[in-house]
Structure formats: C-alpha cells, structure tokens
C-alpha cells in the first residue's frame, strides 16, 4: 500500500492503494467512476479506454504508480453536459445496442479526432480496431465518427 495523488477529470484525488493496481480498478472500485468498463483485463478489448493526457490508453494496463502528473479523463469527464461532439454524434446515429463497449469506443474515437480531426476510413478502422463490440455496432460507430468529424470541421 502506498499513497498516490492522481488527477482525474480535472480533480486531484488522494488515495491509498497498492501501486500495481490498474487505473481501471482505481476508477471503478475506489473512485466509483464506473463508466470505464472491464472487458478483458489484458489490453485486447478496449472497454477500459481512458485518456492519459491526450492519448487513448487501456486503463487495465495502467498501474496507478505509473500515472504521475498526467491528467486522466474518463467518459464521465469527457464533457460537462454529455455534449462532446462524439457523444452527440453517438446519439444522433443511435449507435449503442447493449451499450457496454460504448464508453471505450467513445474514448478511443474522441482521442483519434483530437489528433486527426478528419480521419479517412482506413485511419478510423486502424484506430478503432482495438475496441471489440460483440453486439456488432461497427458500421454505426464509423458513421458516428464521421459525423463528429464533420461537425468539427464545420464548427
């Protein structure tokens, strides 16, 4: 057990956990931010995706001891009122089925658009390939990313 101080969604939180604890479980168990999901625990499904700085990372592979000063953003902190362009596009296209994978999908997609505001189909597929959706919403996810990208460029 050790004391850590991490920045999550703009707030600094102090907590005492084992340094090996993945941020996924810090978020879910300790901070009660359960929007970030557990799917595989081995960086294969993307359900646990959060932003570390501007990058999409798999929080199941991110021990709290390695976070340091970097800012973590979760789905709960992506926007104040749930109106990030990606969230809005997700609603407009009505992407989710069961919805379980969608927070991870949205976090990966929003990081992609930050670094590449108008990605090609290939670039979208490349960035999103690590996020599994058993319900099979991939065609809608792609459409929603394009919708959000279009809004970005129009805005």
């Amino acid at each position, binding site marked *: *057990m050790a004391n850590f101080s991490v920045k999550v969604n703009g707030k600094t939180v102090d907590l005492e*956990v*084992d340094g*090996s*604890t993945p941020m996924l*479980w810090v978020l*879910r*168990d300790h901070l*009660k*931010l*359960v*929007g*970030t*999901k*557990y*799917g*595989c*625990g*081995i960086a*294969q*499904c993307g359900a646990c995706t959060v932003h570390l700085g501007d990058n999409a990372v798999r929080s199941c592979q991110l021990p709290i001891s390695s976070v340091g000063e970097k800012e973590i953003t*979760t*789905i*709960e902190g*992506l926007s104040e*009122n*749930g109106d990030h362009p990606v*969230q809005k596009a*997700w*609603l407009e296209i*009505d*992407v*989710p*089925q*069961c*919805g*379980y*994978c*969608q*927070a991870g999908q*949205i976090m990966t997609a929003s990081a992609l658009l930050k670094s590449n505001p108008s990605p090609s*189909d290939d670039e*979208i*597929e*490349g960035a*999103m*390939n*690590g*996020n*599994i*959706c*058993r*319900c*099979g*919403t*991939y*065609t*809608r*996810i*792609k459409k929603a990313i394009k919708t959000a990208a279009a809004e970005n460029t129009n805005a």
Partner: protein
Amino acid sequence: MSIIKTKVGRRSFLKNSALAGGGMMLGFSWLASCKLSPEEVNELPKEWFKINGFLKIADNGQVTILSPNPEGGQNVKTSMPMIVAEELDVVWKDVIVEQAPLDTDAFTFQYLGGSQAIRRGWEGLRMAGASARILLITAAAEAWQVPIEEITTEGGVIFHNSSKKSAGYGEMASAAAKIKVPEEVQLKEIGDFKIIGTSQKNVDGQKIVTGKPLFGIDTHRDGMLIAMIVHPPAFGLKIESIDDSEARTMPGIKDIFKIKVFNDDYEKAFFDTRTFNEVAVIVGNSTWEVMNAKKVLQIACGPIESATETRDRFGRKWEEHTPAGLESTADHYAQMEAMSAKKGEVRRRDGDPETAFKRAVKIIEATYTAPFLAHNCMEPMNFFADVTSEKAALIGPLQKPELTEQTLSARLGMPIENIDIQMTRLGGGYGRRSYAHWLVEAALISQKMNAPVKLVYTREDDMTDGIYRPAYQAKYRAGLDADNNLIAFHVKTGGIPQSPLHQDRFPAGAVDNYLAEDWTIDTNLTVGSFRAPSSNFMACAEQSFLDEVAEAAGKDPIDFRLALLDRAITDPQGKTNDYDPQRYAGVLKLVREKSNWGKEPSGMSRGVSAYFCHNSYAAQVLDMVIKDGKPTVQKVTCAIDCGLVVNPDAATNLAEGGIVDGIGNALYGELTFVDGVPQKSNFDKYRMIRMKEAPKEIDIHFVESDIDPTGLGEPTFPPIFAAVANALYGATGKRHYHQPFLKDTSTLTS
C-alpha cells in the same frame, strides 16, 4: 377495429392497484435522472397515480411507462413503452421510461430470449395503454356528465368538443385510478398509429454515452465486498480440496471457502445448468486484491463420475446423462463422424426417399461441421446479492428473472415473496444470461459473509466456465433427375449434446421425397442457448448446401430457391411445414431487387442466403472481395419480414448487429478443448470480429406488413453464415464446409 379481452387466461391482466388511493411520491432527482437534462423537467409532479402495472400518470400529466422485459441491446426498453404510449395516446417525448422490477403479478413473460419480447408482449402492451386511456375517458365523462362516446383524446389531452371542455390526463388520473378496468377494450387501427412505426432514439442513449452506472457490474452498495470464483481447469474435473494458506494472507482478503451451487437432491429446471457445481470463492475488499489472491489460490481436483439426473423442462422431465472423462475436440469430430455413419432417429419421411435417390441421375453430398462457441458478452457474468435470514435482494443482468427467482427460492429455502430481483441493463446476453447460476452463487456468498457482495467473473472465468453453443455436424444429400429437378432430399444431423434438426423447416414441403434424421452425443461440457439456438448452425449448413445443389442443377441460386418455395405454395408436401412459403419468397424477392442481383459490381463475389426462424424471415446478399488474401465484406443487403416494425431505426441497428456478429462467428468463432481444458480463455486467442472485418456497408430493408410484430434479435444471425460461405466459394473457388472458415487471421481453410 379490434376489441380484446382484458383477461388473459386465469390472470386478470390489469389490476388497478392504485385503489390504495394516493400516488407515490418521487423526488426531483429521480425524475431528473430519467430525462435527458434537468431543464426538461419543468414541473415537478406532486403525486403519481398507478393506473396499471405498466404505467403511472402524475397530477401534472407526466407519464411514466414501465418497461417489463430485461434490456440487453434489443432496444425493448424503448420499443415496448412505445407500444403502450401509442394506445394511451400521448406524445412520446413526454414519456419517461423506467425499468420494471420482476413482478409476476403485473407482467407475463419478463424474459429476454428467443426474440420473443415484442411478439409476446404486443397485445398486452397495447391493452395496457388502451385500457388506461379508457379509464381516463371514463373519469372525464363522469366529471363532465357527458356521454363517453363523445369524448376524444389526443396527445395526452381529453376533449369534449360540443361543450368545449378539455383536460390533461393528469387532471383525470386520480379519478381514473379508482375506476374498474373494463372487460374489453378497443385497440387502435394500425393506420392510426402515430408512434409505432416511427424511429425513436434509445431511451438510455444519453446515460450510455456519458458512462452512467446502468449495468449490473456497476452496482455499488455501502459495505459491499467483491467475490470471485475459482473453478476446475478442465471439464470432467471437480474440486477435491483447496489450499488457501497463501491466498488467505494477501491484503484485502476476507474469506475463502467452497460453495455448492445446487444441493444434491435438487431437481434442476431447464435453465439450472451448472458445470462445476462446487466452486471455490474468494471474497475481499476490492477487485484487484481478489484478482491477486485468485492467482495464488491452489485447488486440487479429481475426476467426476458419470451421472444421470432427472431434469425438468416446464413440467416435462428428461434424463440428462453426463459422462465422466476428459474430452477433446479431435475426439468430438471423430465421434460425430462415427455417429453419422449409424442409423439416426427418423424425424420425418415424405414419399420414398430411398427409391428416389436410386432414380436420381445426379447426387450431391456434403458434410458440414461447427465448433463449440463461447458467448463472450462484453460484460462478464456478475451479480449483486444482499441476503439476510429474512430476505434476499439481488441486482444484476439476467434473461429469465422469473425462473431464476424460483431456483433461488428453492436453494435458499426462502419464500419468493422475500426475494427481490432488480434487473439492470445487460452488457450482452445472447442466451448466456438465461443460465443464472451466478445469481445463486452471489446469494450463497452473501449469506455466508453476512454482507452485501458483488460476484464478478473474470473474462477468463466467463470464457472457460461457459454454457457453450453445442458442436454440430450435418450431412446432406440431394438427388436431381435428368431435368435437374430436385427429387430427393436427405438431412442427417446431430450435435454434442443436442440435435439442431428442425425437420419441418424448408426445404421440407418443397420436395416429394424427403428424409430427416438425427442423433446426439453426450458430453460433460455444458451447453445452452446461443443467439438463435440450433438455427445458427442449420441455416449455414442448409443454405450452403442449397447453393451447391443449385449450382449442380445449373440454376441461379435465388431462382432455384424460389422454384422450391413455389412448390411449397402450390403443392405442399407432408403434413406440417412450419414456415410460410409466401413470406419466405417475399424476402428473397426483395433482396434480389435491392441488391441488384445479377449485376454485381465487378471483382465482387456474391453469396445469397435466406432463413426462417424465431417467427421472422431474413434473406441476405453478401458482397466480398479478397484483399491481401483476406476476405473483406464490402456490403450486405438484407431483407427482413418480421411483421410490423415498431421502431425502424432501432430494428435496423439490431439487424445490422446480427449480421456483423454472424460474420465474426462464421469466420473466427471457435472454442476447442484438449483433455477437457478450453484452449482459449481471453480475447488474445478468441478472435472476435473487429471493425476492420465488419462489412463496409449494410443495407437493411423491411417488408411492409400489418402482421403482428415478431422477433428481430436473432433472425439476421443464422443466414449470414451461409451468405459468407457462398461468397467465399465465388471468391476462392472452394466450398467452405467447416466453421470457422478462417482458422486464424490470414489462412482460408477449406
């Protein structure tokens, strides 16, 4: 205008229990949480009146509709309340939707499975809305002293035109709640629908995209502990002892013990399947701590003995035989081959198939196989339980709450009234969450710990302690005469441990000489429902085979199928054929038109497939190209006849999902076993379809229909396997008989 009775069987369908007088008080925060944003809640109602099990109306006119069935992505939480709202005659955007609890008094069939929610709920949902509307009108007629026939409604407002009186539903709700439900109610004409047939967004959409706690695994209660299981590493083994000397000392660990899920003398019901009846349990403060202890807990296992137990399928008993031993996939395929060489159980014989095969000038034969599949719901199995000596509170995702409640009641020896099951959104179900042994496990752990507990399966537990899709084999034979007419058809199929045969499905009824037989092989692997059970294999085998037969007959694959269906329409063979050949042909014709059949884009290989299951019809054309040796699905065109479509865009989403999921399972889905050990335990080895492999475009078309709606969660899934196989044939020149078609990411198997 259809008039229906409000009594269904012995149940009086709608009790207005609001006789208790005043409504319930619900705080602002609850109401705000139901709407997209708090600003939309302009006025806080003072009182709610429960009109029937499905709906409450507040004094200010706000309407809350309870969605009775579990939601796992089929969008029933939006579609079912839409049906109620339609008959109630309110404006959809003014409706708040809430998940109903398990309540066997108020609702029937609170299941998720078999694509049945809308089909079986249809009349009841309409009745709930229509009868509430009648009560409101009756209240108004009494208040205004006018004849009830002169009253009309629109958008939640009651009108009496000649006296120019009007009132919102909220004003009449209190009086309406005290009126007796009439014995009959009138339903709307389909042509008058304003909500049904329009696309409405997922009512939980905003919560999903903002990460609100909707799923069972998100449950948290003060003082809650985390529990995980440790099970034998192989099917055919059982735990003999546990060595927890190290695990017990690890930080955050509270207790380690064994539980027995079902007692020895318990007669298991249909959904009570449990492989490892005894599992070790680790309970601790947090997930990570329990996961770490799980890595060091030692269990010693020994072989199971073979057993025969009587099980109960809704009153019908059957003997289930579980052999001892450690099973392997290689042996399974050899066993299936050996079984198929023996005489099967004849399920249907029309005409004289043996003689007809002797007469045939051409005989086409093929063998198809499919492996065990894991469900791989993205939300691993989990459940919350808080069990005391008096009562049990359970929260989580499950598909058959009513049946599970009975099982739990028997296991705890606790009356059903003392058990409360709250249903959360399911992070996928596909059949796996019908087998709710984990709910019983969670309850037993909570009871032992005397504390609230959340049981969570790791992904590895979820995959290796599964209730799998059975492995199957089918052998087909078709005989053609000199004019290339199909004169004889023979299917012999079976599975481990279930037969997938539907002997009365197409092409039964379309061939003079028809023979269907089957067999089964016992196993100690546990199996159960998996998205479109048995159809998910038969569609692939049958529709691949018909393609091969059409080719041998020198006919276009769609024309060939349509000619057979025409035969089933004009001169059906046999006594019972459980499909409607007109509707079957209808989807094939529609997909032919929409896909521009016969004019495929150059360089593209096309496969067609059509199937009937779960009361709906689906036909698909799949366009494929091979890029860098890998098949790429460019487009899928799909025609569906599922009766009236309640929520078209949501239905389209679900249909697309079935197609994507089916392509993934056809190309990659497989779980193999060596000496009882599942050879894959996580997504590094178990290939799931990913975005790159999904179709670039999916084009869904619904047949316009007034027929009562049927299911959609399943019907697009089975046929797509064969559309893939048939397109692969065009693309590679090789028929694909054995699933999965791609053993790994790059190699095409034959």
